[in-house]
C-alpha cells in the first residue's frame, strides 16, 4: 500500500493556466481532473503559489541577502508528495515539510539548505542566530525529516540549537571553527 497525492483544481476555482498545469487524461470513473505541473520560469512559480500550491524557488540572491556569498542555479523545492507530477528546467528538490514552503523565512531557508547546501545552512544560521526564533529552526529541521536532522548534526547545528536531536556524527568543533572562519560571508 502507498499513499498517493496529486494536483487537482478546487471546486469553483478558475481553470489553471495550461502553460503551467497540464490536464492528465481523466479516467471515466474519476470525477476530477488531475494535473501535471510544468514550471519553466519564476513567473510560473508565482502563478502556482498564488493558487496556494507550496512551491518555492530558492535563489542565490536570497541566500546572498542572508550573508552567504555564493552563486548557484535556482533550486525548486516542491512537496515530496507531488515530486513526480512536476517537470521543470530548474533543479527540483522534493521536500517533506510542505508547510515550510508557503512563506519561508530564515528558519525555513536554513532547513531547505540542509538538503541542497548544508555548509550554507550552517553559515546562514550562524549569521542570523541572534535575530531569529531558535524554536522555529528546531521545528523546521525536525519536520523536514530524519535525513535533514542527520545533515544538521553533521553541520553541528546543535551549536546554535542545542535541543536539536542528534542523528549520526557531527564534524569536529575544530573543523566547524575552521568552516566559520573560511566560508565567504558578507563582511
Amino acid at each position, binding site marked *: 500500500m502507498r499513499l498517493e497525492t496529486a494536483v487537482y483544481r478546487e471546486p469553483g476555482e478558475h481553470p489553471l493556466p495550461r502553460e503551467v498545469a497540464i490536464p492528465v487524461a481523466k479516467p471515466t470513473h474519476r470525477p476530477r481532473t488531475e494535473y501535471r505541473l510544468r514550471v519553466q520560469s519564476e513567473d510560473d512559480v508565482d502563478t502556482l503559489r498564488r493558487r496556494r500550491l507550496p512551491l518555492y524557488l530558492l535563489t542565490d540572491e536570497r541566500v546572498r541577502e542572508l550573508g552567504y*556569498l*555564493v552563486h548557484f542555479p535556482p533550486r525548486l523545492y516542491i512537496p515530496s508528495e507531488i515530486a513526480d507530477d512536476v517537470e521543470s528546467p530548474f533543479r527540483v528538490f522534493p521536500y517533506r515539510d510542505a508547510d515550510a514552503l508557503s512563506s519561508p523565512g530564515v528558519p525555513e531557508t536554513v532547513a531547505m539548505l540542509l538538503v*541542497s547546501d*548544508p555548509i*550554507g545552512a550552517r553559515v546562514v544560521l550562524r549569521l542570523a542566530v541572534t535575530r531569529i526564533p531558535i524554536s522555529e529552526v528546531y521545528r523546521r529541521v525536525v519536520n523536514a525529516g530524519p535525513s535533514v536532522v542527520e545533515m544538521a548534526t553533521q553541520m553541528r547545528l546543535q551549536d546554535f540549537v542545542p535541543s536539536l536531536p542528534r542523528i549520526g556524527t557531527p564534524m*569536529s568543533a575544530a573543523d566547524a571553527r*575552521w568552516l566559520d572562519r573560511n566560508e565567504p560571508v558578507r563582511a
Partner: protein
Amino acid sequence: MTGITVVVSILERNGIGFVVVRGEALENSFPAFSDDVDVMVAPSDFERAVRGLRREPSVSYLRMSDDVSRFRVRTDSGQIILDLIDPRGLSGRRSPGAFYEFLESEGSFEKGGVRYARVSVAVYCRLMAPKWASIYIHKVATDVGNGLAISDLNGALDVAELFGEGPRIRERLAAVQREIQLRGLDRPVRWSPEQAVRRE
C-alpha cells in the same frame, strides 16, 4: 576590474605562473561558485608567490592554514578573498611538483588568457583536501546538486590513478555517493538550467 582580473594582473606582475582551481574553475561547467578566487602555483614558486603578494599594496595577508595562504585583495567594487594553494600534497607517490606539471599541461584549459583546472581535476583537488571528510565531501555533493556531472566524479578517479591515489579517492567517492543518497540528490533529474527563465 573584477576579482579574477585583479588577481591575474597581480600574479603576472610578480612573474608567477598559476592555474585557477576550485570554485572559479567549476563555474566553467556549471553556474555555481563563490566570490573567492583559488589559485595554485608550482611548489617551487609558492614561497616566492606569498612574498610577492605580501608586498602588493592592494593585498592584505590574512593567514596560513594547511596548504593554503589566504589574502584579501581590494578591487574596484570591493574586496575578494584569494587563496593561494600549495599543490605538493596532491602529487601522491610522485615527486612534489608532479601534480602541478600535470595541471599546467593536461589538467587545465585556457580561457581569456587564464588557465583553469578541468572540472575532474578540480574535484580531485577537493577530495584530496585535508578536511575532505568534514567539509569537502559536502561541497562535492552540493556541486552534484548544482549540476556537476557524475562523469566528472569518475574523472577525478582517473586523475587520482595517475598519482597512486586511486584507492583513497575511490573510498572518498563512495562517501560522496552516500551523502548524495542521504540528501536525495540521486533522484533522476531531467533538468536543463539553460532553459529556465529568470526574471531580469
